[in-house]
C-alpha cells in the first residue's frame, strides 16, 4: 500500500429497497416493500441521473447507480484517487421517510448491508451509521446496536432534517455519540420537511445544491447556541460536502454577534469561532475556493485551525476531474494533516490496523 490517506466521504449506492436491502429487512418490511412496491427511495438531493451525483467515468456501464458496485468503488476511490482507507456514507431515502418504523427498519437494513457486503469484503473501508433521526429513540437504539462494531466510525445525519440539530430533543444521540467516540457527520441533503432554502422553494437544481450552505450554517449556530458543546465537550461534528470557503465570514460574524447577544445564551462562554475550531471538522470536497494560491492561503489562515480539514473525494459525486481530489494550492502542512492526523483524531474509532 502506498501512503496513508483516509478519504472521509465516499458514497456507496443502495441499488433499491426490493433488491439491495431486501435480505436485510425484517419479515414485515420484506413483505411490505414487495407487496406495496416500495422502492426508488433516492434522496431528491441526489437524484442518480444528475451529473453531480456520478462522474461519467464512475458510472457503471450497465446503467446501475454510481457507487453501487464494490469493485468499481475500490478501483475509483483506492486505486485511482489514492486513498488507503475510506469512510462510506450512504445517502438513501431511509433517512427521509415519514414513517418512523419504516425508517428505522430501513436504516438497520442499510447498516447490516454495509457491514456484510462492504466492510466485511474490504478491510480498508469504514462506515457511518445511518440513523432514523425522525424518531430519536429509534436512532439511539440503532447507534447502540452498532457501537460494538468499530468499523462504524461516525453517525450520519442530513443537513436539513425535521428541526435544528442543537435542540434538546436530540441530546440523547449526542450523549451516546460522545460516549462511543462517534462524531456526528452532517452531510448535505434534506429530509424535505421544509423548503431547501430558508426563504422558499428554488426553481433550479443548482440552487437546491448551493443553498445547502445555509442549512450547515443554521446547524452550526444551533449546536453552539443551544449549548451542545458545553454539555458534550468532546463531541465532534463533521460537516460533509458543505463547502468550506464560506467559513471565514461566517465565523467572524458569529463572533461579532455573540459579543452583543451572548446574554441570550450565557452557557456559551467563549467565541463561537473558537468552538467551531475545537468541535467542528470539514471535508475538503468541495472546497469552493478561488483558483489562486494567495486566496487559498488567506481562507486557510482565516479559518485559523489546521485541525479542521479532512481529506475527502466525495466519490462518486462529480466535484473535480482527473485523479487528484486534493484542491489546488493547499499548503503542504495542511495536506499532511488532513489526510492522516485529522481523520484519526476526528474518527477516534478508526484504527489503521
Amino acid at each position: 500500500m502506498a501512503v496513508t490517506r483516509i478519504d472521509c466521504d465516499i458514497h456507496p449506492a443502495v441499488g433499491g429497497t426490493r433488491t439491495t436491502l431486501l435480505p436485510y429487512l425484517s419479515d414485515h418490511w420484506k413483505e411490505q416493500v414487495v407487496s406495496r412496491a416500495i422502492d426508488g427511495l433516492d434522496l431528491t438531493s441526489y437524484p442518480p441521473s444528475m451529473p453531480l451525483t456520478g462522474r461519467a467515468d464512475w458510472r457503471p456501464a450497465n446503467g446501475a447507480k454510481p457507487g453501487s458496485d464494490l469493485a468499481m468503488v475500490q478501483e475509483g476511490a483506492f486505486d485511482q484517487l489514492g486513498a488507503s482507507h475510506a469512510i462510506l456514507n450512504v445517502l438513501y431515502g431511509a433517512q427521509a421517510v415519514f414513517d418512523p418504523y419504516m425508517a428505522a427498519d430501513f436504516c438497520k437494513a442499510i447498516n447490516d448491508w454495509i457491514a456484510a457486503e462492504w466492510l466485511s469484503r474490504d478491510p480498508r473501508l469504514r462506515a457511518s451509521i445511518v440513523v432514523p433521526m425522525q424518531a430519536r429513540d429509534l436512532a439511539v437504539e440503532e447507534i447502540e446496536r452498532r457501537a460494538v462494531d468499530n468499523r462504524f466510525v461516525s453517525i450520519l445525519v442530513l443537513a436539513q432534517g425535521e428541526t435544528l440539530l442543537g435542540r434538546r430533543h436530540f441530546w440523547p444521540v449526542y450523549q451516546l455519540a460522545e460516549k462511543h467516540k462517534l462524531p456526528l457527520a452532517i452531510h448535505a441533503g434534506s429530509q424535505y420537511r421544509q423548503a431547501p432554502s430558508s426563504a422558499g422553494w428554488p426553481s433550479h437544481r443548482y440552487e437546491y445544491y448551493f443553498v445547502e450552505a445555509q442549512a450547515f450554517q443554521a446547524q452550526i449556530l444551533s449546536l453552539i447556541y443551544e449549548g451542545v458543546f458545553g454539555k458534550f465537550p468532546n463531541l465532534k461534528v463533521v460537516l460533509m460536502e458543505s463547502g468550506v470557503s464560506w467559513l471565514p465570514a461566517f465565523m467572524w460574524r458569529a463572533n461579532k454577534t455573540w459579543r452583543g447577544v451572548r446574554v441570550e445564551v450565557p452557557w456559551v462562554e467563549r467565541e463561537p469561532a473558537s468552538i467551531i475550531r475545537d468541535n467542528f471538522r470539514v471535508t475538503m470536497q468541495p472546497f469552493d475556493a478561488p483558483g489562486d494560491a494567495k486566496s487559498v492561503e488567506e481562507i486557510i489562515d482565516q479559518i485559523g485551525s489546521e485541525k479542521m480539514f479532512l481529506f475527502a473525494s466525495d466519490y462518486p459525486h462529480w466535484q473535480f476531474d482527473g485523479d487528484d481530489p486534493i484542491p489546488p494550492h493547499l499548503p503542504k502542512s495542511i495536506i499532511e494533516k488532513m489526510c492522516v492526523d485529522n481523520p484519526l483524531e476526528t474518527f477516534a474509532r478508526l484504527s489503521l490496523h
Partner: protein
Amino acid sequence: MARHIVASTSEIPPGGNKVVDVAGRDIVVFHINGEYFALLNRCPHEGAPLEKAACVARLTSPEPGVYERSRVGEMLRCPWHGWEFDMRNGQSWFDPKRFKIRSYPVAVERGGELQKGPYVAETFPVHVEDSYVIVEV
C-alpha cells in the same frame, strides 16, 4: 493624578449615574449597591455614551437553561451593541484583556476631611457635613 470632587453622594441615586467633565474627560460615575464607579463615558467599540447603558447582573451559566446572576447591577450593557463591561474594572465580558473601558479610582469622603486638601474642586462648594465622590484622574 489629581483628586477631583465630582459630586455630592446625594446627587447620584442608587442605580443612577452622573456625567462629569474632569480635566477635559467625559466621565460617568455610577452608584450601585452602595458603591461608586467612575468610567470613561465612551464604549471602546463605537463610542456609545455609557450613561445610557443598562446596569445588569453578571450572568453566567453552568449548563443550558440555568441562569446564575451575581453582582446585580454591576455590569454595564452598552446601549448600542450590547457589549457587556464590568463596572469595577471596565473589562469587557468577551475579551477582558484587550477590550476595556478606562476606569478611574473613586473614593467617598466627608467634607470635613476634604477641606484639609489637596483636591481639585473647580465648581464645588464643600460642606463639612456632606459626603462627596472623588475621582482620581
